[in-house]
């Protein structure tokens, strides 16, 4: 029982690490594969996005070549559902039109285990309980 849970937790933490690497590669299609089809992202406070809006927003954001760092503070992993509390920061480089920007927050993310044995983000809520 404890071993099973340790293995599940390791798989979820591995997924979180894969997310950071994939995000920093800038490959929007690859990042999107780390989400469930009907995932919700709340990159803008109070504005949950899903489906095509979520995919488009992600692709546009990644085009600015942001760099993500992430530390998982807490993890609660059941047989097919996980809650992660994350301390993250993103540095967005300067462009011709805009200065460099840094954003950060404490996220509350929910992952689900798919039938194919892969964990994916179902709810990506980077600002956590900030509403």
């Amino acid at each position, binding site marked *: *029982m404890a071993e099973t*849970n340790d293995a599940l937790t390791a798989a979820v933490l591995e997924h979180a690490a894969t997310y950071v690497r994939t995000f920093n590669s800038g490959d929007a299609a690859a990042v999107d594969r780390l989400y*469930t089809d*009907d*995932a*919700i992202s*709340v990159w803008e406070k109070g504005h*949950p996005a*899903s489906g095509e809006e979520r995919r488009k927003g992600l692709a546009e954001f990644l085009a600015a070549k942001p760099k993500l760092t992430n530390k998982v503070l*807490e993890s*609660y*992993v*059941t*047989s*097919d*559902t*996980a*809650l992660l*509390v994350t301390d993250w920061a993103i540095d967005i480089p300067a462009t011709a039109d805009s200065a460099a920007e840094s954003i950060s927050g404490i996220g*509350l993310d*929910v992952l*689900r285990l798919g039938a194919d044995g892969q964990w994916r983000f*179902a*709810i990506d*809520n980077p600002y956590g*309980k900030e*509403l």
Partner: protein
Amino acid sequence: MSETLDLTLTDDPDQQNDVFVAAFNTGQGAIFDQLYREDAISNLTGTPRTGADRTKSITEFLASKPKLNSKVLRTFSTGDTSLLIVEFHLEVTGEDGKTQKIDGTCTDVLVRGEDGKWIMAVDRPVADETSA
């Protein structure tokens, strides 16, 4: 002795919250624990617990008749997974008979099972930091 309480959780997060509060305030762990999946992780008793350990500690805690009041602040829900951010107010009575009030924010993860019903997978209450 036993109260009739409908423990069915609908798609409505406010209804889900009302059921949780009502079940919690019965003081009966056997009722409240039915809202949790067998492998659910609850932090209600201060540390993550699952399975029989969760049921036992929740039952002991509820036997002291803590009173819960809570309000849903925010919900994010896909077809089968839901994240609730809830504001809670808890009144616990210590062994010395003194009442203590604890306010905080709880993060709940509910999932919809193959039977179509919602059930708690993870809860994570965090008390507000008291300003020293």
